[in-house]
Structures are given as C-alpha cells and as structure tokens.
C-alpha cells in the first residue's frame, strides 16, 4: 500500500483514467465474446450462426442487450426478495474487481507537458498500468475468486426452485474443490518469481533462458519452462471449473437442470449473470497470461519505456488474453460435459496430489539452479 508515498491530484486522475480504461474494456468483453462464442460455435458446428443484425452479425449482441432491457423483470413469489435481487451483483463484483491487481502493460514515463499555461506531470511521472499494485497481488485474486461462489449460491438458494438449488449446491462444491488445485498450482509460479506481487511475476518473465548449450535463447515465460508444464495444465483446467465453463458447467447444466442457478432469472438480472460469466472468463485469461504467458512481455523485443512501448505491450497482453478466451470458447464447443462424480474425482484425487507434487518438483528445480 502506498501509505507513505505522496499521493497528489495527478495520481488520483491517473488512477481514475486506469479504472475507466479497464472498466470500459471489461464491460465490452461480454458483447464481443458473446459474438465470438456464437459465431465460433457456428464455425465449429458447420452452420452460419447469427448473421442478420449488422455485418457478420456483429451487432447481434447489442440487439440482445436491448432485448434484455425490454424484458419483464420477474421475481418469483416464493423467492427471498432481497437476496434474489442482490445475487447478480454478488456474482458480477468479483469478476469485475479482480482485474485491479493484474498489470496490463509496461510502465512508462509520462514526459513533462505544458498545456493551457500549466505544467503537467512535472519532471516526468511514471505511469504504471495496473490499478492496484498490492504486495499480496495473487492472494487478492484468490480472495476475490473465492467470493465468486456466493453469487451463484445465493442466486440458487433465493430462487426457491429445486433446479436452481441443485445448481447452487453443485457450484459451491465444485468451486471450493478446484480452488485448492488452482491455488496450489499458482504456488510454483510464486516460487520462481519469489514474490506475490504480480508486477514482479511479469518482470521475472521478461528475462531469457539459454538452452541447448547456450545457443538458443527463449523467453523466461513460465509456460515454456518444463518444470511448469504440470502446474500450467492444472491451473488451466481448474480455471475452467472456477469459471463454470464447459466441460465443468455443472452450475448451469442445461440438459439436466433447466438452466441451473439462474433458472428463475430474467431481464437484466439474467444479463448480469451472463456478463459475470464472460468477465470472469476474461479475468481468468488475464491471470493465466500474467502467471504463465509472460504477461505483457513481447518475446525477443525490449519494449522502450515510452508510450509506444506501453501501447505495444498492452496490445501483446490483450492478444494473449484474447487467444486464451478463444480457447475457452473452442473447448466449450468441443468437449462434452463430464459426469459429476468424475469432476469431483479429478479435482480431489488427481489434481490436488499432482499440484502438491508439482510444488516439490519446482522447488527441486530451483534448488538445483535449473530455473
């Protein structure tokens, strides 16, 4: 926390700018990803998909949003009114706030400017493209992710519907199971970086390794290091379970539970759950990018500490996040839903021991000086 650092009006304005940029980006993730999902599924299933509204159906999501606003907002008579209304907000909040501790570009120096007879950014000011660079960065992510289950649980319970209830119970059991593997898999990344701060996790990955008798130079991205492969696979698969995406979408499971926890929801309340799902997906992709794919690092290119360098690194970050989100969509339309007992078995008997074993492996690599 920046308790003893001078914090003036310029910093406040910069913070607001950062929050505005990220908020705008993340709010727009949903319509874009819905389009990608629908067109992507159509591509995979060899059908046209939405193609009526706008070119390539690009405006379909906006038409959907308009439709959501116009729909009747129904609250079931038996529902717990307060919690039923609060649940979508509970679901959206963690997805929207987690991104605050993820760095999304290279820090750069804003040069001194003279505008309207005033001196702005006196002596140059460092712009760090992260909303909150807290020392417990990764823990904040897990803390907020662990709160994500409440939105689903409260929604399921307060709807007074058996299907919703089943969805909620499944979701809470699933999410607390996979949270363990997720956290333990991330420990190996923290061991290598030697810090909980995500800016330092990324900074460590901007280095290079020399392999094959010091001939080949590869970026020190965690995903490229053999010691991290196990951890990456566990984290990536657990991320699907944490975001309730297929093949782990037991909270919804439309073939079994109508629509699971949001069966009773309509109008904008349902739209909020929809947004929460895609934002959680985007946030999870950003976290995976930061932990394993080198964050904003462009391989074999030393980004200058200028606005151009920041812009390039930001685009690299968004490209990686976008690629991961496409994989989320790809997997959804490729792999069918698992059985519930298999899901639990994978989580507890397979991933958890492997994640613990992986910590030992990575620790051995570090002790041996191979990382």
């Amino acid at each position, binding site marked *: 926390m920046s308790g003893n650092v001078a914090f003036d009006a310029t910093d406040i304005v910069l913070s607001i700018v950062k929050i505005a940029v990220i908020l705008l980006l993340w709010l727009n993730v949903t319509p874009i990803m819905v389009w990608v999902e629908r067109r992507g599924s159509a591509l995979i299933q060899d059908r046209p998909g939405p193609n009526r509204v706008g070119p390539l159906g690009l405006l379909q999501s906006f038409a959907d949003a308009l439709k959501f606003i116009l729909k009747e907002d129904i609250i079931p008579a038996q529902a717990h009114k307060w919690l039923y209304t609060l649940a979508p907000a509970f679901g959206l909040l963690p997805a929207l706030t987690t991104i605050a501790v993820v760095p999304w570009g290279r820090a750069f120096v804003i040069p001194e400017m003279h505008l309207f007879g005033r001196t702005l950014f006196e002596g140059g000011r460092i712009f760090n493209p992260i909303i909150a660079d807290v*020392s417990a960065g990764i823990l904040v992510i897990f803390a907020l992710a662990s709160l994500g289950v409440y939105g689903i*649980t409260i929604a399921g319970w307060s709807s007074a519907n058996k299907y919703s209830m089943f969805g909620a119970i499944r979701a809470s059991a699933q999410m607390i199971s996979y949270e363990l593997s997720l956290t333990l898999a991330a420990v190996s990344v923290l061991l290598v970086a030697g810090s909980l701060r995500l800016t330092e996790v990324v900074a460590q990955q901007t280095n290079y390794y020399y392999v094959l008798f010091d001939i080949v130079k590869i970026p020190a991205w965690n995903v490229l290091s053999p010691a991290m492969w196990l951890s990456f696979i566990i984290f990536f698969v657990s991320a699907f379970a944490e975001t309730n995406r297929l093949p782990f979408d037991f909270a919804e499971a439309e073939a079994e539970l109508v629509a699971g926890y949001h069966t009773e929801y309509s109008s904008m309340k349902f739209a909020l759950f929809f947004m929460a799902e895609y934002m959680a997906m985007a946030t999870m992709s950003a976290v995976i990018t930061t932990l394993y794919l080198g964050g904003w690092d462009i391989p074999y290119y030393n980004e200058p500490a200028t606005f151009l360098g920041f812009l390039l690194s930001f685009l690299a970050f968004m490209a990686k996040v976008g690629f991961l989100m496409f994989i989320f969509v790809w997997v959804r339309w490729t792999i069918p839903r698992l059985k519930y007992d298999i899901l639990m078995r994978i989580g507890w008997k397979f991933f958890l021991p492997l994640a613990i074993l992986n910590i030992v492996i990575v620790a051995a690599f570090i002790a041996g000086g191979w990382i």
Partner: protein
Amino acid sequence: MEFAIFFLFAAIAVIFALVVVLHRNPVVGALSLVASFFALAVMYVLLEAPFLAALQVIVYAGAIMVLFLFVIMLLNLSHAPEAPTRPVQQFLGYTASAAFGIGLVYYIAKYAVSTTTEGFFQADAHTIGVRMFEAYVFPFEMVSILLLAAIVGALYLSGRALPRPAATASQPGDEVSK
C-alpha cells in the same frame, strides 16, 4: 481519510455482526457474517497488512463461510419460532452476557487501546513466513496435527460401515431440519 474509512467499515462490521445474531434466517445470518469478515479485512488493509487482509477473505469469507452456507442450504434449515418457555433461564442468559460484554468493553478500553505501540510493523508474506517457520514452528506444527486429527475424525465418523439399526431410524440431518 483513513479515519472515515475505518469508521465506515467498523460500522459495517458491527451492524452485520448484529444481523448475524438477531436475524431469524440462517442463510441471511451466514451472508452477514461474510460481510462482517470482509469489513474486518478492510481493517487489516488500513493497518498496512494486505497479506493478512487477503488471508482473512480467503480463509474466512471464501472457504469457511462457503462450507457453512453449503451445510445450511443442504439441510434447508428453517427457523423454528419457539415461544419463550423458560423466562428465568432467558433472564439469566441476558444478564450474564450483558455483564460479560460490559466487562469486555471495559478491559479493552482500559488496556488494549492504551498499550498498543505506535509505529511501523511488518506484516508481509516474507516476515510472517519466516516467523512462522522459526519462532513459531512448534505451535504451527501442533495446529496442523490438530487439524489432521479433526480430518481423520470426520472421515472415521462419516465413513465407517456400521450396520444401520433399522430403516425407521432417522438420519442425523432430519432432527436438525425439523
């Protein structure tokens, strides 16, 4: 600024703690406890201990309370509006807890507040880790053994294959729910 944030979140913590005690619906109670824990985590941030704040949310708000809520929902606990049948016990209970509360506030006001040393203290992950594995390694390991014993006990109780007495015997959950 810090002053205002402290009192805002202190008020939130106290109000939600009161809701936990006073509200009849157990699900609302559990969720209020989550809110109270979250407000408590803000206190840790104000004390410049974000590590503890994150742990507070992960362990209490994120893990323990989810399990509480899970059990409450699974058993579908409903409040049993009992008529106050034992006025003497009720009176004694209120008196005793009021006396305890007054004593607690008195001693905290007298000793705890005045003796806290002002100044910088470290509560980051590194310091806590070193302390835990050097100075406090024995209590730390003892706690882990205690937790292990609890896990083994729970596994034994839930997993033993005893012949059930008869089909009429109720499950443990039934008497709780009704």
